[in-house]
């Protein structure tokens, strides 16, 4: 079956990307490319596009996060906690898009060997989870602060200052700092990602275990029901929005502050106006307090440099605050009651529990539930600290390096630094250091780098216009790898749906798309397809959001939309969680929605059955 032409995705070694992408390979390190020497193995695997971590074409430097998680996620499964039959997740790039593959289990004797380690190592983590989490958070915060403290030279001085030479030479100078700073940042990034997976694999495992117990007791229970039992309310990812609510409320209680915030001026004009009054200053002070860490939240997923954060794009939090202030003045409640959310969850759990018939099963259910509740917070909390807070710090530092390169005419724009991968940047920095060290009137290869940037930007733009294949290689008979199902929402049915999408050359033929019924309810409305996170401003109230996946900084948007549809998103996907929170119907993990639905199409989203119907095509 898998051998039939229609039952498989393109062979990665025969696949042709559009000609405009010519030269894309040179942007990335060799280990991330499909390669002749590994062809046999690569052909036998199933590679699907990772829209969770890389919905967009990858700027070369942003690949560092992917490189880091490939190692970290995989090693915890294979070598650290030793989840017996599971192996790692491999990555490849095709036409600037990231494809991933869950590797088949190892030989039985390895599985056996791993089982021994697993038992010894994993239960310890569950037993000591609370103290481990405290330790984790404090060491992670320390790492972030260390990264923040890495000093990037602002300029290359004509002569090093006296105090670096007298009374005794420090021995190494700005040229060294420059090269070392980037190396340090890279090392810290890799360390952060090792920390990221410290407990995540186990969290997913516990989730799957609980889901399995729930399914044995209630054969037809849905993913969203399981998700509702497990999800917590006191989650770091909700904090940025809570802080906005708090600031909005504070604004309405202070004199003259709400008026300024409601105005149409820029953030700069607003802060300047607030600086003039004591109440304004008090509010700004509170804003500053909330900023670190909560406004380090990315405007996107945290995976791309161009997304920006609330730190770099203050118009976003200020815009949300304006909306909240207006709603408060209308007498509306803007905060969600977290206690109520917790209570609702407890009520759901106890109602299911009440349906269990035997004492033994009830005990097993309780045990399974306590196990997942012990650790599930990790799944909810780590995201803010790593993908948002930590990445935002990284982007700040990299931009400082970018500014330096611009200053000495190696690059044209600060963000052009992202057009080089992490192995190439030391080359640029070394050249800059050399140029400085050699003395006056020395030429450097700025033009060469600038041309490279131009070419690469063109390729990335072409890649963005291209609609990549959802998968490559041979689809498995059954997709059962736990993390693949849980995080990416990839199931056998999903793959079949994708194959349908691939076979349908004219997307106009397809009027029904299936996905996960992740938030109950039915809604109909005009679609707004947002392939790029930065286009969120186009969204109008009452539209149905259609996007690759959502992320936390979109939270306030969920009060505006009628429903949400995503290409990718498993049980813990952000869109699923937030839509349930807001009672907005959603279908996640549809695989092909952003390519089949067009902005303006009238679509119906059935969050009960997981079906998205195109009711009327936009003319």
């Amino acid at each position, binding site marked *: 079956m*898998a051998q039939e032409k229609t039952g498989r995705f393109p062979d990665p070694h025969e696949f042709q990307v559009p000609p405009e992408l010519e030269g894309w390979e040179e942007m990335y390190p060799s280990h991330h490319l499909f390669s002749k020497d590994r062809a046999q193995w690569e052909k036998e695997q*199933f590679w699907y596009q990772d829209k969770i971590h890389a919905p967009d074409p990858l700027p070369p430097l942003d690949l560092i996060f992917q490189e880091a998680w490939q190692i970290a996620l995989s090693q915890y499964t294979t070598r650290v906690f030793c*989840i*017996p*039959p*599971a192996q790692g997740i491999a990555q490849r790039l095709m036409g600037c898009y990231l494809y991933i593959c*869950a590797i*088949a*289990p190892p030989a039985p004797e390895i*599985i056996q060997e791993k*089982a021994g380690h*697993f*038992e010894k190592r*994993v*239960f310890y983590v*569950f037993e000591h989870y609370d103290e481990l989490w405290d330790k984790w958070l404090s060491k992670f915060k320390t790492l972030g602060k260390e990264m923040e403290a890495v000093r990037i030279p602002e300029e290359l001085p004509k002569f090093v200052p006296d105090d670096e030479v007298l009374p005794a030479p420090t021995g190494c100078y700005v040229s060294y700092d420059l090269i070392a700073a980037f190396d340090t940042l890279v090392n810290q990034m890799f360390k952060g990602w090792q920390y990221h997976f410290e407990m995540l694999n186990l969290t997913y*495992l*516990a989730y*799957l*275990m609980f889901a*399995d*117990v729930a399914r*044995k*007791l*209630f*054969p*037809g*229970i*849905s993913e*969203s*029901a399981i998700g509702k039992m497990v999800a917590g309310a006191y989650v770091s990812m909700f904090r940025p929005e809570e802080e906005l609510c708090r600031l909005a409320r504070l604004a309405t209680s202070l004199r003259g502050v709400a008026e300024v915030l409601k105005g149409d001026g820029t953030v700069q004009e607003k802060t300047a106006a607030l600086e003039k009054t004591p109440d304004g200053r008090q509010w700004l002070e509170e804003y500053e307090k909330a900023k670190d860490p909560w406004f380090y939240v990315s405007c996107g997923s945290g995976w791309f440099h161009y997304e920006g954060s609330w730190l770099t794009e203050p118009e976003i939090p200020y815009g949300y605050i304006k909306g909240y202030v207006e709603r408060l003045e209308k007498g509306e409640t803007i905060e969600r009651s977290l206690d109520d959310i917790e209570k609702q969850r407890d009520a*759901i759990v106890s*109602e*299911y529990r009440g*349906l*269990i*018939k*035997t004492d*033994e*099963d009830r*005990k*097993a259910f309780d*045990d*399974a539930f*306590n*196990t997942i509740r012990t650790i599930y917070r990790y799944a909810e909390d780590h995201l803010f600290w790593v993908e948002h807070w930590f990445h935002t710090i990284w982007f700040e530092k990299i931009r400082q390096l970018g500014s330096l390169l611009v200053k000495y005419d190696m690059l044209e724009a600060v963000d052009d630094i992202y057009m080089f991968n992490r192995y190439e940047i030391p080359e640029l920095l070394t050249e800059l250091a050399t140029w400085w060290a050699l003395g006056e009137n020395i030429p450097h290869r700025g033009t060469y780098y600038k041309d490279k940037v131009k070419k690469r930007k063109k390729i990335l733009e072409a890649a963005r216009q291209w609609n990549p294949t959802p998968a490559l290689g041979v689809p*498995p*008979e*059954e*997709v*059962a*790898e*736990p993390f693949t199902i849980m995080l990416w929402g990839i199931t056998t049915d999903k793959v079949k749906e994708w194959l349908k999408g691939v076979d349908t050359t004219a997307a106009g033929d397809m009027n029904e798309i299936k996905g996960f*019924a992740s938030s*109950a309810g*039915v809604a109909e409305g005009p679609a707004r397809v947002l392939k790029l996170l930065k286009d969120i401003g186009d969204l109008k109230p009452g539209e149905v959001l259609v996007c690759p996946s959502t992320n936390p900084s979109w939270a306030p948007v969920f009060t505006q939309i009628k429903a949400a549809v995503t290409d990718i998103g498993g049980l813990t996907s952000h869109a699923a969680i937030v839509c349930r929170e807001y009672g907005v119907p959603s279908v996640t993990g549809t695989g092909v929605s952003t390519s089949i639905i067009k902005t303006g199409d009238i679509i119906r989203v*059935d*969050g*009960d*059955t997981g079906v998205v119907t195109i009711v009327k095509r936009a003319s």
Partner: protein
Amino acid sequence: MQYVRDLKALDRRSLPLVGGKNASLGEMIKAGIRVPPGFAVTTDAYVQFISQTGIRETLSKVLGDVNVEDVSSLDAASRSLQDLIQQTPWIPDVREAIQEGYDRLCRECGVDAVPVAVRSSATAEDLPTASFAGQQDTYLWVQGGGQVAHHVRRCWASLFTSRAIAYRVRNRFPHEKVFISVGVQKMVNSKAAGVMFTLNPTDGDPSKVVIEGSWGLGETVVSGSVNPDRFVVDKVILEAGVKDISAKHIECVFDPKQGRVVNADVEPERQCRCCLEDREIKELVKIAKYIERHYGKPMDIEWAIDKDMAFPENVFIVQARPETVWSRKQAKSVIGAKSGYQLLMEQAMKRIKIP
């Protein structure tokens, strides 16, 4: 002697007097569930009829002689007993009581000659241990006291169908201990109707309500003459995970020209439309959960949605009985005594199938 009793005056303890169905309807009304109004013709009325008319002796003699393994003898006995019940002249007390019951119902509904459903309600029927379902008769859209009385007797006669006689003999129910009551209940002029179960009958999942429904009266669903729409709804989070919409080609409706209910063709554009609105599904689930909680066991429920009334007053329950298949299975642990860690280890060891 009370020959008729208002459904409102009944509860589950009334079973010996009014049979399982009627007692259950009374029980539900008491519990605040929306059930169409009506009355029960009690077993006393039946007993009084067969005693005073003197046909009781004939009944037990014929039944005593019948050989259920001999089809022709069984059929002959059945025919003669059914004729006897239907042709013996009424005793006035019982006949008048039925008329009064019906007149009262008409007044209550504010309608002259209110259409009613006449259903038998046997005292041995609907017990979880003896699924008699379908063995007694139901007559729909009966109007006028004379017609009601006539159909009451047809219900009485249904105790003596060949199948019913044979069933009792095989299951060792003494004939003289099975009495029959009849329920007379206002017809719901239903837009859609059907059945629902407070567990999933396919896999026994106790967290689901499964609803089957079709256009018109519920008889098409109960008899299996259409493929109904099917909804599987989670009891806790109330999402309908399955919504199977079928082509419902016929519907059971009252035909005023013929003066009876008929199976009419459904116009093509309505066949594949969902017969229930989302809010109606939610309301049915709410009621199903309530009924299950009230009885403390899984239930099998018949419902109907009135055409003319407004939501939610138009959602009616016309019958509820204990579910018999899964409830009979002994509650056995499906997971076994396992700790969270054992479960986690099992999960971790699961083989991953990727060819």
